[in-house]
C-alpha cells in the first residue's frame, strides 16, 4: 500500500476533494471501508451522478493505476481476463518454419507459443499481475450490462484475487486491487456478489454541493453562472422529464455556456444550448412548454 492511503473517513473526503471529487459522508465511509477491509465497493445510482468518477478520483488519490473494464452483453473471459495473440502465434510458427528452426516435438512448440510473450492481458488479469507496486483501481463499469455467466466468473476472480491460466500456471496479486463496481440497476446483480461487496447508493448532490462540484470541474466558469445553472438543473429534475439531467449534464452545460462566453444565464443561450442538458425531443418540448423565460427568471432571481 502506498503512503497515500487515507487514514480516516475525513482523509478520504479531503483527499478526493483535492482530486476534484466532492464526496458526502456516506460515500466517503463506504470508500474508506472498502480500502481498509479490501472489499469491492458496489455503487448504484441514477445515470450521471458520478459513479464512474469515484474510481478516477480514487486512482488519482492513491496513485494506483486505473484499469477499466466496461461491461457489455456477451463479455467473456477472452475480453475480460486474457487472450492469446493468435496472429502473432501463427506468424511465429511461419517464421520458425521458414528459418527451419521449427521443432518436431509438439510439446516444445507448445511451450514456445503459450508463453507470456504471446499473452494479451485484459483488465482483470492486469489488475492482479505483479507489475503493480501500488494497488491499482479496478473499475468494473455497468456490471448490469454483462450477463449472469460473467458475474459468476467475476465472483470467482474477486474471491481469490488469483487467476489460473492452464498453460502458464496461477497468477496471484501481490497488491490486491481496489475494486469499484458500478451498476445502473437495469437488472439485479446476483446476491452472492452483493454479499461480498460494500454497497452505496449514490444520490444527486444537494444544490450547494452541486455548485461546488461544477466550480471544481469547470475551471474558467463564472461563479454566478454555475449557481444559476445548478439551480435551473435542479428545477428541471422536478418537472418529470424522461431523462432528468445528472451532475454530468450540469457540468456539460456550464462548460457549453462558458465556451459561448456567457457569465450569466439568459433565455436565448438556454434555448441555444438546451441540447447539452436535455436529451429527448419530448423533454425539450416539455421544457419549452414550461416557458424557458420563466425557468430562467426563477433561477436568476434568487440572487
Amino acid at each position: 500500500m502506498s503512503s497515500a492511503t487515507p487514514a480516516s473517513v475525513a482523509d478520504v473526503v479531503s483527499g478526493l476533494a483535492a482530486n476534484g471529487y466532492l464526496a458526502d459522508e456516506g460515500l466517503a465511509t463506504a470508500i474508506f471501508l472498502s480500502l481498509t477491509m479490501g472489499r469491492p465497493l458496489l455503487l448504484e445510482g441514477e445515470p450521471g451522478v458520478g459513479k464512474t468518477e469515484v474510481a478516477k478520483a480514487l486512482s488519482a488519490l492513491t496513485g494506483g493505476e486505473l484499469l477499466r473494464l466496461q461491461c457489455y452483453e456477451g463479455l467473456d473471459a477472452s475480453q475480460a481476463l486474457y487472450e492469446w495473440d493468435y496472429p502473432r502465434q501463427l506468424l511465429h510458427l511461419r517464421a520458425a518454419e521458414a528459418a527451419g528452426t521449427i521443432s518436431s516435438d509438439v510439446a516444445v512448440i507448445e511451450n514456445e507459443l503459450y508463453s507470456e510473450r504471446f499473452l494479451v492481458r485484459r483488465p482483470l488479469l492486469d489488475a492482479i499481475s505483479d507489475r503493480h507496486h501500488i494497488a491499482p483501481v479496478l473499475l468494473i463499469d455497468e456490471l448490469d450490462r454483462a450477463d449472469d455467466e460473467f458475474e459468476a466468473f467475476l465472483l470467482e476472480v474477486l474471491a481469490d484475487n488469483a487467476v489460473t491460466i492452464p498453460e502458464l500456471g496461477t497468477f496471484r496479486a501481490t497488491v490486491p486491487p481496489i475494486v469499484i463496481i458500478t451498476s445502473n440497476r437495469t437488472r439485479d446483480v446476483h446476491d452472492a456478489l452483493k454479499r461480498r461487496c460494500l454497497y452505496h447508493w449514490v444520490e444527486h448532490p444537494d444544490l450547494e454541493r452541486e455548485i461546488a462540484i461544477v466550480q471544481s470541474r469547470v475551471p474558467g466558469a463564472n461563479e454566478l453562472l454555475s449557481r444559476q445553472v445548478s439551480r435551473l438543473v435542479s428545477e428541471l429534475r422536478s418537472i418529470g422529464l424522461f431523462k432528468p439531467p445528472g451532475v454530468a449534464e450540469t457540468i456539460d452545460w456550464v462548460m457549453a455556456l462558458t465556451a459561448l462566453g456567457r457569465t450569466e444565464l439568459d433565455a436565448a443561450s438556454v434555448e441555444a444550448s438546451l441540447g447539452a442538458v436535455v436529451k429527448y425531443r419530448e423533454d425539450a418540448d416539455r421544457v419549452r412548454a414550461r416557458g424557458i423565460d420563466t425557468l430562467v427568471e426563477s433561477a436568476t432571481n434568487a440572487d
Partner: protein
Amino acid sequence: MDEDGILGLVELLRTAGLSVPVGNLITFTEAVAIVGSDLRSLYWCGRATLTHSPIDIELYDRVFRHWILGTEVGLTEAVSRSPEPLLVDDDERLDGEQADFAEIETNDGAVLRFSRTETLRSMDFADLDDEERLEVDRLIADMRLTATMRRSRRRRPSKRSSGAPDLRRTVRESLRTGGEPINRRTLQRTRVARRVVIIADISGSMAAYSRSLIRYAHAAVSARSRVEAFALGTRLTRLTRELDIRDPDQALQRAADSVEDWSGGTRLGEGLQQFNDDWGTRGMARGAVVVILSDGWDRGEPERLASEMARLSRVAHRIVWVNPLKASDGYAPLARGMAAALPHVDDFIEGHSLGALDRLSSILSSGRSGPVRSRSASSPAEVTR
C-alpha cells in the same frame, strides 16, 4: 457501542424483513471497529455493509431510527403480513359480473363430452369458485413458457465450416500439423431467451385475471429466470424477487395492500411512466417481450398513456396487451386508455381463461401469432407530449 447493541440492531433489522447473513454481520462489526462506534459512523457502516438496494436503505433508515429512539414509529409497516387469499371478499361482486362474462353453460348437455380440465380451460377466471380456482392454479403451475430466442453476442465453437474464425482452436490444432493451420475452426453465435416483462393491472375489476397471470408468471419464473413481473395499481410494484422465492398469493397481496385507492381505476399512464423511467428504457424492456394485462380503464390522461406506450414500443421487441374484456361479445376498445394504447400494441388478446393463456404462451414462444403492428403507426410525430 458494545457488541450487544449491534446485535440488537441486527436483530431488529432481521425482524423487519432485511436478510442479514452471518458474513455480513461480521463485516459490519469489523467496519465499526475500523471507523468508530459513534452514532454517525455506526449508521454509515451499517448502511455500507448491511444494505444492498435502495429498498433496503429505506427499511434500514426506519429501523435505525426506531433503534435509536426506542419508539415503535413506522416499524409496523415493515412487518410482513400473513398470507390471505386475494379474492376472499370479492365473492359478491363476482356474482354480479357473472352475467357479463359467462360464455359457457356448464349444465348444457354438450359439455358432458369434455373432461373437467377441458371445461376449465375455457372458463372465465372471474367465474371460478374456490375449488375450481385451486384446480386452475394447479394447471397453471404446470404451464411452461418457452420464450422467443434471439441471437446473443456470446459465441461458441461451431461445427460448421462457415462463420467467424475461431483462432484459439485453429492455432491449437495447427500444433498437430507442424504449425500449418489446416483445420480451420469457426465460431457461431449462441442464442438466448428474450426477456419477458409482465405488467399486471391489479385494480379491483382485474384482480381475478391478474392473480392468474401472476401465477402464470410465477410458473415461468421458477422454470427459467428471464421473466420480470410488476403489479400496477396506483403505483408500480416490482414482484420479480417475490415470485422467485415466495408464495405468489402473498406477493400479490402485498402489492394490493400498497394500493391506497381502488375506486375509479388505475393510473396506467403514470404506472407505465414509472416503469419506463426506473426500469424499462434503462435496459429491462430493451429487446424484451412486454405483456401488459389491463382492461384499459385509465383514470389519467390518454395522451400521457399514448406517449408512454410509444416510448415503450421504441425499446421493446414486442408488446402484447391482454384484455380479458375482449372475450365478451361485441367488445370494442372504447375505453379511452385502451384506444390510446392500441396503436402501439403488437398483439391484442383475451387472457381470460386457461385456453387464452395458452394462446399467450404460443405468442411468447413463436413471436408470430398475431397481426404485426406496422412500426410506422408509432412514429414519434403523432405521440409527442
